[in-house]
């Protein structure tokens, strides 16, 4: 799988990083640029934005990781949440990297909102051209949309995870990548490996720290009736050992992979990753006929349907969850959010009222200071309750 990712990136031009799922990788690729979805570690040491009371750890980590990168030619941030919208201000003041703020409407039910998103993609195109990208033609975009190896393409979740891994772990193990690839700099005085090693040590010898997304390794991707991507375990896995658990929430950082390990170690199996960095953050399949007619419109319409807590109203998120939770057979939900992430934090109580399954809320300060022992105890107790 790594080879296919490498193959796609064999002729790198310029690298554009982003983290929000509403940024279409295909659109960047159609400009002859290399899209990288950056999932923050976060790095230690490099600080564009220090810790601040009230600041979302993910937003902070993303900006610090971006600012610490070398060989990145541009960054795209979206207005999906207020904190990201505002870290953009600090990024443009404190870093020299060309940055673009993509307006993602919160409302989605009007034609005007959909058109605004489409217009924003066109504006993004002008930004990408200014960075040295080529103006895309329909065929090029269509090819990118059909490219199964493109990070962000929904055809294979594992591919996306591999893409994430190749992005995020470049700094961890640069030697894993061919020398022809652009490199991200090892920025922190303490290498990320150290952070991961520390986490491993804290977890103890029984815990295997695996690449982010490993819990999805055996997943199949299916299309739901609504045309959205669906995550379902294969028959063997779904009948395997462990309490079937869904993980729901906003984005996760790389270091949050410990959560997946802890779930497994405590006797759970993850049957649905409904986080922003999991299945929920992926767009549905492209309609090939509409793609042939007007690929940009199809791209915009498909991405715009990604469900999120921040949409207003966010009823589509619950429709998606209803379908996916039923399909996955999850018996309980681990709900993860970062402190100060208002949009996800506010959904916890609502989800509990609505879902009819056991829900355990897990908040994280994103700094690795959340007690792993406490986390393990909570997860274990939750899983024991469900056994």
């Amino acid at each position, binding site marked *: 799988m790594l080879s296919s990712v490498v193959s796609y990136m064999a002729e790198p031009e310029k690298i554009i990083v982003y983290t929000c799922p509403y940024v279409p990788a295909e659109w960047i690729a159609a400009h002859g640029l290399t899209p990288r979805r950056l999932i923050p570690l976060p790095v230690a040491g490099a600080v564009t934005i220090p810790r601040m009371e009230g600041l979302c750890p993910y937003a902070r980590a993303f900006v610090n990781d971006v600012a610490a990168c070398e060989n990145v030619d541009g960054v795209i941030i979206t*207005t999906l949440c207020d904190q990201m919208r505002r870290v953009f201000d600090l990024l443009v003041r404190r870093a020299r990297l060309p940055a673009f703020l993509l307006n993602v409407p919160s409302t989605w039910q009007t034609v005007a909102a959909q058109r605004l998103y489409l217009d924003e993609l066109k504006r993004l195109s002008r930004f990408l051209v200014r960075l040295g990208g080529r103006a895309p033609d329909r065929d090029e975009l269509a090819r990118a949309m059909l490219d199964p190896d493109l990070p962000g393409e929904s055809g294979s979740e594992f591919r996306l995870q591999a893409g994430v891994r190749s992005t995020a772990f470049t700094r961890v193990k640069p030697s894993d990548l061919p020398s022809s690839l652009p490199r991200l700099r090892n920025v922190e005085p303490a290498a990320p490996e150290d952070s991961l090693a520390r986490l491993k040590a804290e977890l103890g010898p029984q815990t295997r720290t695996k690449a982010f997304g490993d819990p999805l390794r055996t997943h199949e991707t299916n299309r739901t009736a609504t045309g959205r991507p669906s995550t379902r375990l294969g028959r063997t896995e779904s009948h395997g050992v462990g309490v079937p658990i869904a993980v729901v929430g906003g984005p996760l950082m790389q270091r949050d992979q410990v959560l997946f390990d802890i779930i497994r170690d405590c006797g759970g199996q993850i049957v649905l990753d409904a986080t922003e960095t999991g299945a929920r953050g992926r767009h549905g399949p492209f309609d090939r006929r509409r793609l042939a007619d007007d690929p940009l419109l199809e791209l915009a319409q498909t991405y715009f349907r990604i469900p999120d807590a921040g949409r207003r109203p966010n009823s589509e998120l619950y429709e998606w969850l209803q379908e996916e939770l039923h399909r996955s057979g999850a018996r309980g939900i681990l709900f993860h959010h970062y402190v100060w992430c208002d949009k996800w934090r506010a959904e916890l109580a609502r989800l509990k009222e609505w879902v009819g399954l056991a829900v355990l809320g897990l908040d994280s300060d994103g700094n690795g200071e959340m007690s792993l022992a406490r986390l393990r105890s909570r997860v274990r107790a939750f899983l024991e309750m469900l056994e």
Partner: protein
Amino acid sequence: MSEAPRQITLREWDRRYERWQAAGVPQPAYGGPLGRHVADGDTRLLKLRFDNSPAALRLWNFLLTEEDRLRAARAGGKRLVGTMKDLGTVPVMAYSLDNLVAFYPDGAWWIPCVMEVNSGLLQIADSLGIDESFCPVRAMLGAFVTEAHFPIPDLLTCSVGATCDDFSAIAQRLNGLGHPILWWEIPHRRAPEEGEEAVLLPGGFSAPKSQIEFVKSELQRVRFALEDLAGRSLDDEMLARGIAQANEVRRLLAQLQHLAFTAAPCPMPALEMLIAEMLAIHFCSDRAETIAVLRELLEEVNRRVAAGTGYFPADAVRIFWVNPVADLRVMNLLEDCGGRICGTEYLFTHALDPIPVDVPPLETLAQMALADPMVGSAIDRATRIIAEICRFGAEAVIVSRIPGASHCALEGEIIAEMVREECGLPVLEIEVPPLTDAMAPALRTRLEALVETVRDRRSR
């Protein structure tokens, strides 16, 4: 009745009111002793000090009787519109229809302060999963549940998009509790790009024409909803008349601000000025009375300026204040520490700017909505703050953080950076929760240190 300006306690006010009543001094229908609001639970009033003018009494009584006014409006057959996360746009539209009354449910954010956290609203919000990690505006959720602080509106609108996450999340929670909401999108205001048609907005920002058109289409949706609710059409002529009335409010406030921020001695204290500014957002549920209240306040201020009377020593430190305070008492505290307000940015400066009347009404309202300092970048906001600092000659800036508000995490950093770079002024960032009593000594120390710093700079 004209006396030297002096800040007095609630008890003094009530004694004074008795004398006025005995003397047959006329009062508005909502008038009365301020002490009666304490009986209703507004115990914070006992710890505030108020301006001693009849105009100030009228202002306070007007503010504290809004709930009665809303219930009376409904009883009189008017329909109520709750305009959430809307600092001065939809209310202008709603008041253009004479059978609608708009109010600002977000105003419930002051209830925990005014009732000294005895209202139970925050506990209700807690029980709904909206805990103290959110802005105190979460009290609004409790107010909807108890229905004890305002009637449930017939129509709820809420702007979303480039708004605070905490409010957006709270509004979504409210929606999930069964309150239908008309969401309208306000996009992040961006600078026009090369080749794009640009529009200069009131207040000095600019935006692409395409964004104006988009917001206009969103406001058109709101207009349809208001028409449905009112059962009559809302044409451009009616909107233009509504805009003219809103401009009268803004004109009065601009004069008040100019005198309060520049005259020596200061003719009106910070607390009354804060309340007066807040009236611009939604007219405290009665636009005509808002104008009357502000006129009387302006007359009082003019009288004081002409007489050379006012507050504070001549060397009071001139402070520019950013963000409204969750605890009203802090405005008293600043003045106790030797400061006076000379410029404010309470999140809604755009609601104080005159609304242009040379473009079609809906378009001009779209411009106003996009001129909101909160929908653009913090850099834009800081730029406007700097312009106001220069205009009013402030000597220091206080950025007052609102606990849990998503915009407060970072904007203070940018505002402080830019103010220091461009004005060379000291900046103090403080956090003001709904009740500051427990932290008052620490807060006082910080404010005094800022005042002392400025005085020291003067002497160099």
